[in-house]
């Protein structure tokens, strides 16, 4: 009996060690970089030569003095507003789409399933290039010339479109699974009792699918926050653009001369402002960590296939 207990213990220890390795690796990866936030003498000396004039006092502080820089607050504001808009649009479009894909016979349904699943393993750079090729050439380009505005390299249609592509696919993965799991019989009963199709959906299926819809919203928002490549390819950076390039509306919302946060991480690290870049990165890690913890707590499931 004691021998069996011993083997059970060894067995558990073996499997725990692999999960423990992953945990330690991830924790080490994210925590050991905290010292990158402190500015070193060498960095100060390098910046005497390379930095742009008036920003130098800010950059030579803890974490690049990010809290004093209006660029940081504007970028955070921009990212939060755009991700919330993206999530709203994805929800409004995604719930009818998921319901249709789950309940009705649509031509090309299997194509849609493969397409939405494959978007999850498609490189972000390919999504970005597809967006650029789709909007900057051919009939959509002519349409933009006719209407006098641009989708690419703009904040309002551009960034929302770039973050929407993958955010919508991830939200769909949860919404479709939820509507699949709700028995269509309940709705049929409601309809046989005289309610319309819309009312049957609103009063029967929607309350049953509520938790899955919330899951999809969280997934879509998290994916929109994690978006990098599509925004980089389709919108680029805005920091160096002149103020006259931005509309009054953008300036009113405090979004001018600001970047998508994960693009700003890249831009700052490439520029040599390592501390500033890492400060932004830690903010993204905090947001991502909280949302994934919430997902685990409520038992959220986003299906890949």
């Amino acid at each position, binding site marked *: 009996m004691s021998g069996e207990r011993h083997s059970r213990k060894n*067995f558990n220890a*073996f499997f725990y060690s*692999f*999960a423990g390795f*992953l945990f330690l690796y*991830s924790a080490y990866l994210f925590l050991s*970089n905290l010292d990158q936030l402190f500015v070193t003498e060498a960095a100060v000396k390098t910046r005497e030569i390379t930095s742009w004039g008036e920003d130098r006092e800010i950059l030579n502080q803890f974490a690049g003095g990010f809290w004093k820089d209006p660029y940081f607050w504007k970028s955070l504001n921009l990212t939060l507003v755009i991700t919330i808009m993206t999530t709203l649009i994805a929800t409004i*479009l995604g719930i*009818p*789409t998921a319901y249709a894909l789950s309940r*009705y016979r*649509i031509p090309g349904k299997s*194509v*849609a399933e*493969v*397409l939405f*699943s*494959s*978007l999850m*393993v*498609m*490189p*972000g*750079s*390919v999504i970005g*290039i*597809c967006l650029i*090729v*789709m909007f900057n050439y*051919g009939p959509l380009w002519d349409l933009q010339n006719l209407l006098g505005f641009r989708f690419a390299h703009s904040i309002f249609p551009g960034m929302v479109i770039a973050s929407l592509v993958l955010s919508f696919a991830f939200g769909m*993965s949860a919404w479709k699974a939820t509507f699949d799991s709700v028995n269509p019989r309940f709705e049929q009963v409601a*309809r046989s009792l*005289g309610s*319309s*199709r*819309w009312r*049957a*959906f609103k009063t029967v299926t929607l309350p049953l699918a509520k938790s899955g819809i919330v899951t999809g919203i969280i*997934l879509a928002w998290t994916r929109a*926050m*994690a978006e990098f*490549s599509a925004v980089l*390819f389709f919108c680029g950076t805005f920091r160096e653009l002149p103020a006259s390039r931005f509309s009054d509306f953008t300036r009113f919302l405090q979004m001018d001369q600001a970047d998508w946060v*994960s693009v700003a*991480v*890249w831009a700052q*690290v*490439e520029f040599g402002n390592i501390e500033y*870049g*890492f400060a932004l990165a830690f903010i*993204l*890690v905090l947001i*991502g*960590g909280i949302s*994934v913890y919430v*997902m*685990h707590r409520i038992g959220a499931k986003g*299906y*890949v*296939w």
Partner: protein
Amino acid sequence: MALRSRGGWWPALCIGTASIILAVYLLLVTSNWIYLGWHDTLYFFSKSRMWERFWLTVWTATVSTSLSLLIGIPAGYALSRFRFPCCYLVASIIDLPIVVSPAVVGAFLFGITTRFPFDWISEYYGIYIGRNVYGVLLVQFTVTAAFCARLMKASFDMIPTRFEAVSHSLGASPLRTFFKVLLPMAKNGIIASMIVVWARAAAEWEGLMLFVGATEGKTDIMPFAIYLDWNGGMMGWVTSMSIVCILMAVSAISAVKIIGGRSNVW
């Protein structure tokens, strides 16, 4: 008949929205073909530069997938079957590399490769992990190990614990149960997860941009080469390589659909 028509706008709206979105996504994915045309696609596909990059992508993705499977299958089993204090917190931290922006993961890898295990490896074994193909493997491993553990957890979650309980009650040891009962039952899920993990490894490039950088023919795996050639303004190369990446992703997912089953991350 009156019953059928009342509120009929709702299915019409649903089907209309679904069709429009499907059309937009199809246009998005096929826009590269439409842009490039048949003859230019064939021209770029016949170049050896394309296939060198393709094989680089394939072998790096295969190596990092094998490494992450070695870690991911036992870790997924532990996450699926064992309950321990703070298990949600531990699972969240394991998930962090796939949840935060991959650019952030690249920046953090850039930070840790100067530290303890990595500086030690480069000093004693002469293996420098950084601006070479080992850096590519490290970036792919970091992202896919977490992804693999999640998919394996989902595959093991599909199997009821009852089978293991029966096997235990008949006197089999835990190890025997794992190899003779659990793994054969989870086989399809594991194979499907393997394919998806491979596709995810081949799709990873944001980390490379911050951490590894570009060396023509050495570290420019296909998604990264798309970025590099786009900066160089070579739209023909960019669109033809996008086509290859799209075909890789779509064929991986089609294979998974043929295998069947379901799996979830998060």
